């Protein structure tokens, strides 16, 4: 452990690409032949856009240097809770980027895409198997769009039955922000219910709100509190009996892979974050893939296209095949390249490996939790097992020393660890949501604990050190309030 680590490379701070621009400079090798284009004068652009004019070397150097300013899985332990920052196998990238796959136009005839479509078909089948669902659509482009598809299907289901009053979606207060946002986006009313002290949903509260207006409930399991919801059976009975459907937010599927299947548990619909559980890279904010799986009742409503297979081969199923579909959510079939990566990953992990993912993710989280417990840190749910993640609360440190979860998070960066998720879920004060994932070695976990212990010591001896952290990164702590007040969202040439 090295609390004030050596700098990696001496580099003056990187200007913006616009600062590097010089009028008339260009990357000649990237210029196509000049050809005259006959644009009607009234429709012609008058001033050139303010794009940088740099050499190819300048662009390469600039973005290479910028990239070095990031933490990433490939460079750092990244225990960001609810984000499943596991190793993104390089093989998935290499084989998803074969020239034929990259060059295939989405609207090319299916005879020119049987290889790709077979992968997609098999991916659907595998996702059905791991979730226990009856049908899968791959088209949603991220978790949130998967949720949207799910809620829209629930809505379409009720509408198709003439059950038009079901306009409420129940969401536990610990839910990810996308859940209530999605419900709203689907024109639903959000009904929040609390969790109890052990992290389970409060069944009594649920009982109170469930009824003839209930379209469904959105449940994250393991919940974002890092615990497994123990009252699934009751929950399901309550909601189903009331005529509502059960939505499973599968962002945390990594924790239960091969252990339980949402379909077996009676859920009607699930979205999966393939970019988490099936290890497609996050790319600094995407792309994702939020495939949805459904039980029998929602099958007719799946978003299109879905890949089907008949004697002539693989083809897209569309409006004609699924006339009750909620329709199209993307220009083509979602983030195909991400889906290919997920497919490759699943095939590499295979049947037995799939089961081990949940096991070792859980082992790592429980080991970390045990280590932290032994070191005197405070779990938010001390009576519970960790799932693939767990929560520590820094509330005592915040109260006694004024050192917050955020201060710990920022100081961790100085130690070369990405911070856990902070201040989410909102209902646990000063929380750090920690998800190590199964791909990290024990030594990384031990190093992380050691860093937290060292930082806690610092927090007692020199709180200011933490308040001022980070100290060794390209920037010190940034002023978010100023950012929102003095909006500077685009580069402008010096006046």
């Amino acid at each position, binding site marked *: 452990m090295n609390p004030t680590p050596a700098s990696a490379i001496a580099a003056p701070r990187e200007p*913006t690409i616009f600062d590097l621009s010089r009028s008339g400079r260009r*990357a000649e090798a*990237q210029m*196509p032949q000049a050809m*005259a*284009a006959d*644009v009607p004068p009234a429709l012609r652009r008058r001033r*050139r*856009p*303010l794009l*940088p004019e740099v050499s190819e070397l300048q662009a*390469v150097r600039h973005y290479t240097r910028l990239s*070095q300013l990031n933490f*990433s*899985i*490939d460079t750092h332990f990244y225990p960001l809770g609810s984000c499943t920052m596991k190793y993104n196998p390089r*093989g998935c990238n290499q084989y*998803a980027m074969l020239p034929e796959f*990259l060059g295939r*136009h*989405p609207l090319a*005839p299916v005879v020119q895409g*049987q*290889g*790709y479509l077979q992968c997609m078909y098999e991916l659907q089948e*595998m996702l059905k*198997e791991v979730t226990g669902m009856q049908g899968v659509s791959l088209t949603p*482009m991220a978790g*949130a769009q998967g949720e949207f598809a799910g809620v829209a299907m629930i809505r379409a289901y009720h509408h198709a039955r003439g059950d038009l009053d079901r306009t409420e979606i129940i969401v536990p207060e610990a839910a*990810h922000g*996308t859940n209530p946002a999605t419900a709203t*986006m689907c024109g639903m009313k959000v009904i929040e219910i609390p969790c109890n002290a052990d992290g389970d949903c409060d069944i009594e509260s649920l009982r109170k709100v469930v009824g003839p207006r209930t379209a469904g409930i959105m449940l994250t399991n393991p919940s974002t509190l890092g615990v497994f919801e123990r009252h699934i*059976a009751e929950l399901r009975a309550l909601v189903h009996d009331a005529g509502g459907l059960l939505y499973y937010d599968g962002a945390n599927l990594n924790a239960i892979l*091969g252990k339980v*299947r949402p379909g077996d548990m009676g859920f009607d619909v699930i979205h999966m974050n393939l*970019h988490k559980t099936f290890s497609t890279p996050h*790319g*600094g*904010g*995407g*792309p994702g893939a939020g495939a949805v799986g459904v039980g029998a009742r929602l099958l007719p409503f799946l978003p299109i296209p879905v890949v089907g297979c008949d004697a002539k081969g693989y083809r897209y199923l569309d409006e004609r095949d699924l006339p009750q579909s909620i329709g*199209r*959510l993307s*220009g083509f079939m979602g983030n195909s390249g991400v889906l290919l990566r997920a497919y490759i990953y699943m*095939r590499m992990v*295979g049947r037995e*490996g799939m089961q081990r993912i949940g*096991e070792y993710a859980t*082992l790592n989280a*429980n080991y970390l*939790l045990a280590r932290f417990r032994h070191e005197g840190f405070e779990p938010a749910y001390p009576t519970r097992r960790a799932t693939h993640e767990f929560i520590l609360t820094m509330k005592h440190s915040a109260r006694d020393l004024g050192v917050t979860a955020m201060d710990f998070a920022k100081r961790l960066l100085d130690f070369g660890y990405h911070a856990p998720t902070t201040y989410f879920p909102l209902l646990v004060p000063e929380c750090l949501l920690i998800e190590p994932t*199964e*791909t990290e070695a024990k030594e990384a976990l031990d190093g992380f604990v050691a860093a937290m212990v060292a930082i806690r010591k610092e927090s007692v001896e020199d709180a200011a050190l933490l308040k001022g952290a*980070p100290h060794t990164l*390209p*920037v*010190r702590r940034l002023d978010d309030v100023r950012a*929102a007040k003095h*909006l500077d969202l*685009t580069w402008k040439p010096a006046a």
Partner: protein
Amino acid sequence: MAFIPHTPDDVREMLDTIGVASIDELFDEIPATLRAGPLTGIPPAMSEMQIGRLMSERAARDGRPLNFIGAGAYEHHIPAAVWAITTRGEIYTAYTPYQAEASQGTLQTIYEYQSMIASLTAMEVSNASLYDGASGLAEACLMSVRANRRSKSSRILMPRAVNPIYRKCSGAIAGNQGLRFEEVAFDPSTGQTAVESLAGYEGDDITAIVIQQPNFFGVLEDVDRLTDWGHAHGALVIAVVNPTSLALLKPPGEWGEKGVDIAVGEGQPLGVPLSSGGPYFGFMATRMEHVRQMPGRIVGRTLDLDGRPGFTLTLQAREQHIRRGKATSNICTNQGLLMTAATIYLSIVGPEGLERIASASMARTAQLAAAACAVDGVRAAFVSPRFHEILLRLDTPVAAVLEALASRGIAGGYDASGDYPELAPALLVCATETKTDEDIARYANALAAALGAARAA
């Protein structure tokens, strides 16, 4: 165990530390009745070597046809540097930049991207990307309802000449919130959305009007008049634009008297491979006055504790993780990697390169149009000015023609007959700077042969 580093010793020590006898014990909170059996439907593990071979075989089955399809996704040359950098671990395997200090690379890239999009569209602000162009239009429609406070109708005028998939997607997404889309006809001779056809809406409460430039037929709309009509009638104006075309065409921020209110589009042409339809990214730009209604992430420049500049996510109060049910959108993960590729792409091609790419695409399409229309049984559906796409009307059904072209290694265009039965048999074709004289000749010959065969059959 693929990707799991634990040695037997590690496992033993870890279980001891936890105080359990087995990993299985860690799942003891799960009711036994719920436990799953083995996943027999998942095939056994393959090594990277095996999957590599399998994927190579599948890719070979797809082949590499000579492509003349556009219809929303465009084949352009992508400088090798773009993906060499984009796939660097520090970019490829980072998360959304929640910890700003540890994500300055991503954040500065987004800031640069926002600046480029704002300038390309001639708008004031841009977000950090949406999923794609189609869903981006849906978001723009939803945003227009929030931003046009004077309008109560949630009625959106949607020209029939707008990409049919965009229209479907907007309906599927925005329909749930009660938005109503009114289809505006196009002029059957020009393929343009005639301002005259809007006459029926005079005096109505219209929330927004959508204008796609070039429209789905590749035809250039009279954007100035349409924009002014929208503003004159209290509607916001939403532009759907092809980013490459903006090097040549008047940017939406300058349409009409005031410019549009929201500009969206498919970012794929900017350095993103066709890749069977994704991942792409949607871009969105707007006026500063509407910035708080914009969905998606936004990055701002600010100062650090030492007063030095740095970048951070800002205006997060619009977003789901803060505002939850009241957020501007549910979008969370967006298309960061593709946005990065586009930023590098635009940096490398620059203003001159983008203009040349746009001009060459336009010129090549003109060449393709001439060659195709010289084939017996082929004529242009419209004679209007166009960008890099042309709708052809054939004298035989398109499906068989496309099949014949496919058998000659050509992806021959998009069959628009289903979307526009009134124009059937209709084939939408496209050429970009990637096409040569020989390619176009090859296409025309193959088309002639296919049509000849179809007629003979």
